[in-house]
């Protein structure tokens, strides 16, 4: 990989501020140092915690199999090596029009030459007054609070939303001995991601875990005065509940950028190289709408920073990034993996294993070309297809790159 461009103009940057101290922010900080930036590096994190990994929160952390120390994304040695000024527990509240000053909620300001926006997304909440017993699952504090409640003995848990967070949380709650119902407004969970055939397969996993799945009906209201005691559905049914987990998606954290010159629309608008309207401001991870698409994938948050930082240090987009969408989910003892770009109407067929055996690889195809793959407990064949899909995609993209990049 050449960093010639980065070194030439990057040497002019004395301070770079990374706003956001989670996965994408940490990876950006690592890339800044790896690509030769030796100036002042400021990292601002809204949460009071050092960078931690979110995927285990709904799984091993909730189950008590992984403690907080195992969530850490970095260790003391690396933290020292990065030589960054960390500001935890402080939220950014603004970026000036030129993108040269980050305003913090506590009144401090950071003067900076470059900015990496990595503020992530926040869990969607239901409207209405806050009731005790109602949880979201996005942050470590969310997970701590839910876990504390689940340890108090068997509960009636209603999970609103049958997406991956909802399904994993339901799976963990069931494993802990609670009585769990999942409510999904769509006819099936994960329909847009997996299509009807495979969404039906994944929906079937809930029954295996002893979890009731209610589909095709929305939530009208939560019942309760101070503590929640039920979930009222749009058809009038009321599901009794001691604990409610709301897993209905996330919204990008762009509120703090409202007064800036950046274009915001379901995320911070960036070109294919993660560069915003200001060349010295890049965005990565859940908050970034890169080349027209925003992906809340762990692998986007880890793949984008290398390119974003390269472009930041170069002062313009010299490289583009378009990682193959990839996500996974562990639920009810099964590992689901999906990669590719499925569109409605793609045909899907099982090519290895069998659905009824609980281990299979399915391929999505359009006009005879494989577009995506889904596997349940079939990791090695899945990896083969995922690598092949990524390789096929890389070719046309590489032609647009300003200079060849060694792979």
């Amino acid at each position: 990989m050449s960093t010639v461009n980065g070194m030439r103009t990057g040497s002019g940057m004395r301070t770079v501020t990374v706003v956001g101290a989670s996965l994408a922010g940490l990876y950006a900080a690592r890339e800044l140092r790896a690509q030769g930036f030796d100036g002042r590096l400021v990292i601002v994190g809204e949460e009071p915690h050092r960078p931690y990994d979110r995927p285990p929160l709904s799984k091993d952390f909730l189950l008590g199999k992984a403690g907080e120390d195992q969530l850490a994304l970095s260790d003391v040695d690396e933290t020292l090596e990065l030589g960054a000024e960390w500001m935890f527990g402080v939220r950014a509240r603004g970026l000036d029009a030129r993108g040269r000053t980050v305003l913090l909620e506590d009144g401090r300001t950071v003067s900076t030459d470059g900015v990496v926006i990595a503020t992530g997304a926040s869990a969607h909440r239901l409207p209405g007054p806050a009731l005790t017993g109602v949880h979201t699952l996005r942050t470590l504090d969310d997970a701590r609070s839910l876990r504390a409640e689940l340890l108090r003995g068997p509960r009636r848990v209603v999970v609103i939303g049958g997406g991956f967070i909802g399904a994993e949380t339901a799976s963990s709650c069931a494993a802990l001995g609670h009585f769990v119902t999942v409510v999904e407004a769509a006819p099936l969970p994960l329909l847009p991601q997996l299509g009807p055939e495979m969404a039906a397969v994944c929906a079937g996993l809930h029954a295996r875990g002893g979890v009731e799945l209610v589909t095709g009906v929305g939530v009208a209201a939560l019942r309760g005065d101070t503590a929640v005691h039920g979930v009222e559905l749009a058809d009038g049914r009321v599901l009794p509940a001691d604990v409610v987990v709301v897993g209905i998606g996330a919204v990008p954290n762009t509120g703090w950028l409202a007064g800036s010159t950046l274009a915001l629309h379901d995320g911070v608008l960036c070109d294919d190289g993660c560069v915003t309207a200001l060349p010295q401001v890049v965005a990565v991870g859940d908050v970034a709408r890169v080349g027209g698409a925003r992906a809340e994938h762990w692998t986007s948050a880890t793949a984008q920073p290398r390119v974003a930082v390269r472009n930041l240090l170069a002062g313009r987009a010299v490289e583009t990034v378009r990682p193959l969408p990839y996500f996974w989910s562990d639920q009810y003892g099964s590992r689901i993996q999906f990669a590719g770009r499925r569109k409605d109407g793609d045909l899907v067929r099982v090519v290895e294993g069998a659905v009824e055996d609980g281990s299979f690889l399915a391929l999505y195809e359009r006009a005879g070309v494989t577009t995506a793959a889904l596997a349940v407990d079939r990791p090695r064949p899945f990896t083969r297809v995922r690598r092949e899909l990524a390789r096929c995609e890389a070719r046309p993209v590489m032609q647009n790159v300003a200079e060849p990049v060694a792979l």
Partner: protein
Amino acid sequence: MIPVCRLEDLPEGGSVRIDTAPPIAVFHADGELYAIDDTCTHQDASLSEGWLEGCLVECPLHEASFDLRTGRPTCLPARRPVRTHRVTVDDGVVHVHPAAEEGTAA
């Protein structure tokens, strides 16, 4: 010393997981036999199901990669090495000699 399988049952490019505590993965890669801890040091995934390329195995979950010869991670997200274990072939049978756990008497 733990018997794993017959050598002919572990062809080049193959791998096998043995249910020790912690589990161990044995690979036949690049003409050699290697054994490392099976669980990725990043997150719960079985390296025996990983992708082999030369002497490297890539975790099937997050693409962390480990050098089979040293156990060291060659890229993120893994930061800590896996342990390596000695492998021998006696009378056509592959054996693993688990390394002593850290902090325990060998």
